[in-house]
């Protein structure tokens, strides 16, 4: 073994015999822990000073790149939000040549009415979150646990929407919202126009369904024997067991609602109802630059705080996204 690995870091080494790689690994085997104990480098590789330092330098370079690229713009904004317009325009990379201007934040919050749009955004996001969670849990529960005979048809129809690019429905969806079929009402300038379409999210439904598919079925039998009906079974048995996935769905539902721009802009033309993302481009030309930058900072603050608090949930969820997509 030691002989074979000797010429390890040399790229120009003569090609070794083709490594034995089974062509097709078993499907969906990504999360088996036993297989993920080691990485690309073996303990032997780590023991070699050259390799160890090479890897460390690469990792330090990546850390530096990530810090500058990810944190840089955000920290710049945090500084600019409390600088004067003059300073930001003349010397954008200097640190407060003429002192900090903390008043920007309160001017943005009060006079530019960011507080009002902030509240609108929270309301939009909470409603979207609730509708998405309701549809995904009840839908996932029926399709994964109750499994009526028509379940496969519904699952297929939900899955199909995942493959239709969102742009196709943009205009027909708008006309549907303007005049809901059968009930003949318009949802224009109503938050329902944002909340309800948010619920038609196939990704959420399939994520929850897949999670519930994996729950032990004998628990349901036990609950049924104890006399629990389908509603009771959902509320007292399935939901408590599904907390991890509901956390992931909740966080992405809230965040995506906060980030959404095009759809709220189309269905909420009334300025007093608009969320931050719709309002910010419009106030750009009406307020002073330092106040505008303060408004941008306020608008990104809550998502970032939520991200930092629920980091684990986010990072797991982002990986999950790949698992479902893959």
């Amino acid at each position, binding site marked *: 073994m030691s002989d074979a690995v000797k010429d390890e870091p040399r790229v120009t080494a003569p090609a070794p*015999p083709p490594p034995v790689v089974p062509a097709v690994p078993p499907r969906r085997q990504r999360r088996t822990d036993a297989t993920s104990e080691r990485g690309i480098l073996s303990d032997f590789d780590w023991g070699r000073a050259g390799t160890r330092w090479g890897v460390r330098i690469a990792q330090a370079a990546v850390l530096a790149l990530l810090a500058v690229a990810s*944190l840089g713009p955000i920290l710049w904004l945090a500084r600019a939000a409390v600088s004067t317009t003059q300073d930001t325009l003349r010397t954008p990379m200097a640190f407060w040549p003429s002192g900090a201007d903390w008043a920007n934040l309160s001017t943005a919050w009060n006079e530019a009415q960011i507080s009002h749009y902030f509240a609108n955004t929270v309301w939009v996001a909470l409603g979207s979150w609730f509708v998405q969670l309701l*549809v995904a849990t009840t839908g996932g529960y029926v399709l994964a646990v109750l499994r009526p005979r028509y379940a496969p048809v519904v699952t297929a129809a939900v899955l199909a929407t995942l493959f239709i*690019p969102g742009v196709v429905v*943009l*205009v027909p969806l708008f006309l*549907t919202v303007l005049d809901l079929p059968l009930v003949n009402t318009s949802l224009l300038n109503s938050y329902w126009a944002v909340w309800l379409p948010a619920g038609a999210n196939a990704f959420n439904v399939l994520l929850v369904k897949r999670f519930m598919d994996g729950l032990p079925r004998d628990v349901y039998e036990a609950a049924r024997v104890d006399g629990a*009906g389908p509603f009771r079974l959902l509320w007292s048995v399935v939901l408590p067991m599904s907390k991890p996935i509901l956390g992931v769905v909740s966080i992405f539902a809230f965040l995506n609602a906060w980030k959404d721009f095009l759809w709220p802009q189309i269905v909420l033309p009334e300025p007093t109802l608009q969320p931050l993302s719709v309002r910010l481009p419009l106030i750009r030309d009406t307020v002073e630059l330092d106040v505008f930058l303060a408004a941008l900072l306020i608008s990104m603050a809550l998502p970032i705080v939520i991200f930092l608090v629920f980091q684990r949930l986010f990072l797991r969820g*982002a990986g999950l996204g790949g698992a479902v997509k893959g």
Partner: protein
Amino acid sequence: MNATIRWVRGGGLSTLLLLLPLLLVFSYFAWFPIGRAVVMSLQETNLVTDPVWVGLDNFRHVLDDPLFWTSVRNTLYFTGLALLFGYPVPLVLAVVMSELRRGKGLYSALAYLPVVVPPVVAVLLWRFFYDASQTGVFNTILGWVGLGPFAWIQDASSAMPSLVLQATWANAGATVLIYLAALTGVRGDLYDAAEVDGAGLWHKIWHVTLPQLRGVLLITLILQVIATFQVFTEPYLMTNGGPQNATVTVLLQIYNYAFRFGDYGAATALSVLLALFLAVMSAVYFRLTRSWSTT
């Protein structure tokens, strides 16, 4: 009648009741609009008078628009650049990060941070960074090493790359985490086997890591292409299609047809064309790559 009673007693009704939110929301806001898109693309719709069947007129109108090919070219350009910037970088980052023995959480959090910044905030902020004057943020930084000043989004030739740079900043973190999750699933015994056969670091990456990520790599590629074909917020807020139509994308065209000119038929026709194109492309892609996909 008896069958109905049996169905209700057996829980059929409560099952349907529980499925109702999903059925209602998807019927109204997914299934019905998808069907309606096809119908609307063949009609003249102006919200005032009843829709009129016009056959393929909308499609003809859209294809004859001088901006059509401009928007197609720009969208392809955006997609190509986005792949060039955004496809290899996350992979390299993820492979390096996967070898971390500690601090993986810090790296992941840093990588993902831009993804949680609302796109509108990010675009408006970068729009300011791209200030073309000597004292613009990027021009100041590049000035330290004697470069620039550059015109960024104010010049037709550099506008699109600037947009892509911002979009890559905003989205790369999500892809890094997908790769990172996939990398934890690469089977360790394959590395053991490769080492026995004398494989070095690069050989292990090339012959074990990448083949094991094949499924995820193929999927993220096509998903990224589909997503970049629908780019809207960046060109709309950063340049609004300018300068000299250099950043007019297909989705911007759709938006303008519908919400600036009220031509809903043309807007849907273009949407349907885009969707058909994406569907055909995905089908061909999956057919071509089926033999080397693992999933």
